[in-house]
């Protein structure tokens, strides 16, 4: 609760600092609007009473007052609404969203992007910074609207104390209204799966041109269209049911309030003062709008909590997970990288992915890591890239603990192409360089991507990815982009290729390996760089200086290709299967 209060103060202060005019106007309006609802009844009464008295000046003043209140109540309220949207958008897009992005993109480690529990919180926040800021204003408005209701009741009570009985009636009505809204929220949650199913079937299957060929061949179009329609039908029915129940609650609430209202009108009418009648009626019939507004904003405040939790968590996480290390990485590797008894278990899981791994990767070596799915190859790479820290054991870079090296600096001296790479919807050049300076042409050449670039309509300036109307690449072509990206670093000390050629044909794969092998040797001569090539195919790594064979998180064998073959162990076995096909 205290942290919410702090966040609220912080956000309002931020608004005040950046846009003092708008902020002061809005706060002022929320103060004024607490009496606005009551003012409607009061000015109309004044108009009627002035008419009865017959004084021209009084009539003029009252008419202007009533018109003014009307304009304020409808028009300025609307302006305040638009201004809130504007302010919230400005603050959230220029201040809050960048904070979220920084936390996501710049924290040294990646646990918050990989651990499903954390990732859920992060994805909840995607593009939702507006809600965080709007929450601060919703709080203010909910409070202001509630006070407005109380003021209105006080005015009604001034006409006839019995009218205060409207308060409990309104409270009952509010409670029932709330029950209904809750029901809708519950039902939304319950039908979310059907809605997702409908969307997935519809977007990915029914209207996806890439799916059509298979639907045709298998005669599955009718079935797909039927299943999406059924899922939608379930969503429709469940939403309608919930909304009807909610309307039922709301109506029941109104019956209660309506009873009170009827009694109030009866009492006021019996007194026979036209001014009071119009006051009671005009306020009574507007009551619902005011109640709904107050309820809507306060329910929103509650709903935003869903986002505030993750937001506060992420900010705290970002604050506490900055990188304290500051040692500069060496300019060249002399000894290499040594892993000593490294063990690692992904946080939140129990099964170790790496167990007691000790190995020395000599400077200047081309190291291949082979093993089947789930053997821990990729995790090893992540530890080398400082994406995670080992649970126990240590990684030494030329005798300096990797954990002591400045993370950004260490990463600036490495490069990598991952199996699971990003497909960025931007220009080819931008996607390769990612803001780095360097020679695009030689990078493209190294990745064997010249043919690809020459086929792009606007060359390196071609937008990639269908999402925003660019050129869609094949899997193999995307892979070449990722490879080119990894080559955009001129002189890395550690160069990682994590299964980078799975979707390429034989000559392309060959050409790439040839070039990267040559590059690895050049780098090794230049600064003692280590190249690590991860693969589950054995044919690609035979030439490596050191082959690490991994299984179930352990290093099973290591050595050169011929050494491992004579050992007749796991490597020889798996290599045999593959080689048999080529014999």
């Amino acid at each position, binding site marked *: 609760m205290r942290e919410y209060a702090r966040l609220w103060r912080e956000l309002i202060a931020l608004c005040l600092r950046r846009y003092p005019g708008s902020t002061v106007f809005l706060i002022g309006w929320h103060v004024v609007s607490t009496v606005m609802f009551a003012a409607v009844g009061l000015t109309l009464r004044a108009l009627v009473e002035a008419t009865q008295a017959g004084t021209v000046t009084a009539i003029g003043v009252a008419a202007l007052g009533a018109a003014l209140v009307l304009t304020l109540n409808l028009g300025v309220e609307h302006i305040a609404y638009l*201004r809130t949207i504007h302010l919230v958008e400005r603050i959230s897009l220029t201040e809050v969203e960048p904070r979220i992005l920084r936390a996501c993109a710049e924290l040294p480690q990646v646990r918050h992007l990989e651990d499903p529990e954390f990732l859920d919180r992060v994805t909840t926040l995607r593009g939702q910074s507006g809600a965080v800021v709007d929450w601060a204003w919703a709080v203010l408005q909910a409070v202001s609207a509630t006070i407005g209701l109380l003021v209105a009741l006080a005015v009604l009570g001034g006409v006839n104390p019995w009218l205060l009985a409207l308060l409990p009636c309104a409270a009952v009505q509010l409670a029932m209204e709330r029950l209904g809204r809750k029901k809708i929220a519950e039902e939304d949650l319950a039908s979310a799966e059907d809605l997702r199913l409908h969307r997935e079937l519809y977007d990915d*299957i029914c209207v996806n041109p890439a799916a059509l060929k298979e639907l045709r*061949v298998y005669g599955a179009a009718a079935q797909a269209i039927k299943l999406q329609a059924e899922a939608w039908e379930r969503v429709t029915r469940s939403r309608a049911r919930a909304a009807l129940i909610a309307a039922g609650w709301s109506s029941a609430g109104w019956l209660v309030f309506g009873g009170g209202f009827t009694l109030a009108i009866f009492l006021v009418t019996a007194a*026979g003062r036209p001014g009071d009648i119009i006051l009671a*009626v005009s306020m009574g019939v507007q009551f619902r709008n005011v109640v709904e507004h107050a309820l809507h904003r306060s329910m929103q405040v509650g709903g935003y909590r869903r986002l505030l939790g993750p937001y506060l968590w992420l900010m705290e996480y970002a604050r506490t997970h900055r990188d304290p290390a500051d040692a500069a990485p060496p300019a060249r590797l002399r000894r290499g990288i040594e892993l000593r008894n490294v063990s690692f278990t992904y946080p939140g899981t129990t099964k170790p992915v790496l167990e007691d791994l000790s190995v020395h990767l000599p400077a200047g070596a081309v190291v291949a890591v082979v093993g089947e799915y789930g053997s821990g190859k990729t995790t090893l790479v992540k530890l080398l890239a400082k994406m995670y820290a080992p649970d126990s054991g240590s990684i030494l870079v030329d005798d300096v603990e990797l954990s002591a090296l400045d993370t950004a600096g260490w990463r600036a001296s490495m490069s990598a192409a991952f199996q699971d790479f990003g497909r960025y919807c931007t220009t080819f050049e931008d996607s390769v360089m990612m803001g780095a300076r360097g020679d695009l042409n030689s990078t493209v050449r190294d990745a064997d991507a010249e043919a690809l670039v020459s086929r792009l309509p606007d060359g390196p300036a071609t937008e990639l990815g269908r999402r925003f109307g660019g050129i869609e690449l094949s899997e193999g072509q995307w892979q070449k982009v990722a490879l080119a990206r990894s080559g955009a670093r001129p002189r890395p000390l550690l160069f990682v290729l994590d299964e980078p050629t799975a979707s*390429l044909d034989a000559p392309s794969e060959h050409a790439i390996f040839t070039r990267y092998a040559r590059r690895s040797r050049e780098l090794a001569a230049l600064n003692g760089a280590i190249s690590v090539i991860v693969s589950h*195919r054995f044919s690609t790594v035979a030439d490596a200086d050191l082959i690490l064979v991994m299984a179930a998180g352990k290093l099973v064998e290591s050595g050169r290709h011929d050494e491992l073959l004579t050992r007749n162990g796991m490597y020889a076995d798996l290599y045999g299967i593959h080689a048999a096909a*080529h014999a």
Partner: protein
Amino acid sequence: MRERLDLLGLFRHAGPAVTIALTAMVLIDAVVPAGIAIAVQELVAADGRSALAPVLLMSGVVLAGQLALAFRFPVGRLAADRIDGAHRTRIAALVMGVPTVDVAERQDVQDRVKTTTAEPRDWVDRTSGDGAVSQLELVGHAVALVSSSVVLSWWSWWLVPATVIPAVFFRTVHGRQWVRHFRIWVEGVLYHRRWKYWGEIATTPAAGRELRVFGAGEWLLGHYTRDMRTHVDPVWEDDRRVLRGLWLALLLPLAGCTVAFTWVALGTAAGQGTIALEVAVVTAAWSVFSVAIRTDDVISLEGARPVRRAAGELERINPAPLPLRPHAGTAAAAPPLVRFENVSFSYPGRPVLNGVDLEIRPGESLALVGLNGAGKSTLTKLLAGLYRPDSGRILADGTDIADIPGWQSRLSVVFQDFLKYPLSLRDNIALGADDPDLLTGVVRDAGLAPVVSRLPGGYDTPLSRSRTAGVDLSGGQWQQVALARALYATRRGARILVLDEPTAHLDVRTEHDLFQRLPDITEEISVVLISHRLSTVRQADRIVLLDGGRITESGTHEELMAGGGQYATMYALQARRFSQGYEDRLDEGDLA
């Protein structure tokens, strides 16, 4: 006007009961303000005497209005949902019922499909259903204006223009503002989606790794800021313009109301009418302005407009969608002899096949090899009748496949980008035509049995993590599911099995096992196998090489190796790399 009628016409999908109920509620809501004005007049006229009747009238009107308001939301939601459901099903039928697949792949068609069916992402996206309901509400607003005007006219006819004109003027000005604002917003919507995209990217694990390794956090933020600014700067500029305009426009209702209130009050004081009438007229004037300020329907109508337009265009692009029917399972027949005769095919601006002559003999296994982009997948799409040749013919037992009804039911294809249905394993394989015996058989043949035994719900486990108790399969496991699906179709009568890179995601051992089993599980079936890993195709009865848009080599592995052509070069390359490591150079000429 046509657009408005088109929207109202959509209510045919909502059902008569819902439409009538919604119309009734909208109309009740519309006449309530006038009703209140009348009731308040009666209350004041009662002048303290026994006022039970006017009191009941008043509470009756208010209650009717509240009930109509309360139920308008669920009924309107239901109407909109039903309209949207019918709309989407229609669009899907139009897309799936295109004459050949290339029509659906056309960019202009895809753009329209996207426009018509996108899940509302931003406030500017409205559905057909939203548009229809808003159009009905707009009718309600007109009724509200007219009924309140009737009450105003009891005082004097000129009071009607005196209040309605400023109100309508305000509404028009503000409505125009909204439309302009809306269009400015939509103009930059691509950049809006782009900046959202950067946020999305920042939270994916794949990009997360690369952003860190390449120190590209600032790069991402720069893109976010640039795209966000490109979108919102004009929007924010217009925000300020709208707000300034609104302050000015508000002077109209202020002036209108002041004049009307003053005039009526002065007139009443001078004895021109009763206090009761004054109260009624003031109440009615108030409600005229309340209606004028509501402009949310303007946004809905504007938002639904592109959706309706694109839907109409899709209807014109595909005026006669093919009926969608599941294949009937057929009794086993012999596989046909398929002949490609001088077949050519181009994608717009890109020729792919240029005079292909090819036979697929009954029951043989034929491997189709070639470099990336040689047209292997295109050839299989022609075989499946998904595209029509630009010239040449494809015959099955002498008949053009275009003239064979249900040709596609005789084929089964594992596409490279096979579908991953977010459905149960059973549905993923059987696609609604469930036969438990066949299912067990193909699961075994596809090597999927161990996976099934580990699934918590067996065959009924949904294969999507977004479903309750659903699981995510690995790439390799999905590939086995796709294979099982294809085998299932062969058990139900398909006689040609096309496998397009069926093992790209499998590990060495599984791939090896699968190819060992392949001849046994495809008996009596013609198999067309595409693979870039040549070691996997050498056991095929025949291998054909596709190069430069035609078949350049054909024969068994041994024959082709002996022939010393391109196949032999490619094979030797992979094998050499295998036995000696990757130091060998490949001549640039071989890479073309």
